[in-house]
């Protein structure tokens, strides 16, 4: 325990975030782009629910800001949406942990839907509103990949004893 363990835990958590950002910008064929799950958001939700004392609204906001930079969106847009989801996840992490895997999937889809909705409104203000229904597709795909994210990150957390 102590400083060393704290540092190591944070290093591993941040490495998973780097991986999530790589998945966020990974080049894909055009038709697949709309299917891309909100990887960074899923990773943020996992760590908040698993270790609410390590990852909170501040960390999530910073990740959101980096997503803004990578996407070329107005700075603060994704950051705000990340903070919103982080707030909701941190508020309900006990119920989230107790719920069954399919209930978790539903919660995740609600989180992603709120996230997409907020970004939709913010994009509307700045004038680059997406005009197709496909915009909402990540709600579904994020929900479907959630069990995978959960299992992989839990294995990493247990293997490296991230506390």
């Amino acid at each position: 325990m102590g400083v060393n363990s704290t540092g190591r835990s944070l290093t591993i958590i941040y490495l998973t975030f780097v991986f999530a950002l790589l998945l966020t910008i990974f080049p894909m064929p055009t038709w697949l782009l709309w299917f891309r799950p909100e990887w960074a958001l899923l990773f943020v939700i996992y760590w908040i629910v698993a270790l609410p004392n390590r990852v909170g609204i501040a960390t999530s906001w910073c990740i959101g800001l980096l997503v803004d930079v990578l996407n070329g969106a107005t700075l603060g847009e994704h950051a705000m949406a990340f903070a919103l989801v982080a707030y909701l996840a941190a508020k309900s992490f006990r119920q989230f942990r107790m719920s069954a895997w399919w209930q978790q999937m539903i919660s995740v889809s609600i989180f992603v839907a709120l996230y997409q909705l907020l970004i939709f409104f913010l994009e509307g203000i700045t004038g680059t509103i997406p005009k197709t229904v496909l915009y909402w597709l990540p709600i579904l795909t994020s929900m479907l990949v959630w069990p995978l994210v959960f299992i992989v990150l839990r294995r990493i957390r247990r293997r490296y004893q991230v506390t």
Partner: protein
Amino acid sequence: MLFNNSQYLGIRFTFFLILSIIVMVMDHRNHQFGTIRGMLSDAMAPLQYTVNWPMALTQRLKDNVHSKHELVTENTHLKMQNLLLKAKVQNILALQKENTSLRALLKSSSQILDHVAVAQLLAINMDAYIAQAILDKGKDDKVYVGQPVLGANGVMGQVIQVGRWTSRLMLITDTRSAVPVVNDRTGMRAIAVGTGAFRPLSLINVPDTADIAVGDRVSTSGLGLLYPVGYPVGIVTSIRKKPGEQFSDVVVSPTAHLYRDTQVLLYWHTKAGMVDEAASQLKQMQQEDKNMNQQIIERVRDGG
């Protein structure tokens, strides 16, 4: 501890909410904020290069497993193409020279033989609704904001943000993009605005009575002083005249392979200094031609 934590949660959330709004307003209004964005972009550059690496690797593997037959065919094809292009270049150089002298007669400025450099696209369209891409050249390669970017088949877009090693390209399909164009057939001027990623362009303010037809090619007019003159932008694919309205809906599909090209040309507008270089190149080519002709004549003489 947990109790405390959840009590402060609301306060912390409010704080970051307000911070987001401040950052958004600053980013939208204040251009000084660009330096912070630039710094963050530079920090993110390694990620963009990393993501590109598997693509580059598969390309290299593909190159390695080409069969000999394929290579020979390709080589012959390229040689033929090269020959054709060389022939064309000679013609163009002669025309350019003529153009320069004519322009000199008319006392207008001339823009000839511009400076270009090839850039690689990193991580094209990260997000499906933002028509932007990352280029692998930045401030170190003298890329500047507002620089036109061309593809092999037409205009791609312009640089909107420059980092140290990377820069951000806004494609012409972006909703914030507008390209001044001219109809190649009739010379009518218009503006082609983007309507979003993966969607065609739209010509705005085209009067109902304008002479425009499906299949017309539009290219850059050079007005607006951003894009160079005469590069193809798109083909008119549909025209809809709405009764009772002053302007018709004109849809233009871009000729550039916006989502397939991985190599693009960065374009620098040049000064008159380049004209001299063009002239010297022309002279050299003419000299070479003369030599060739001489050799052929000598050979014919020897034979005869």
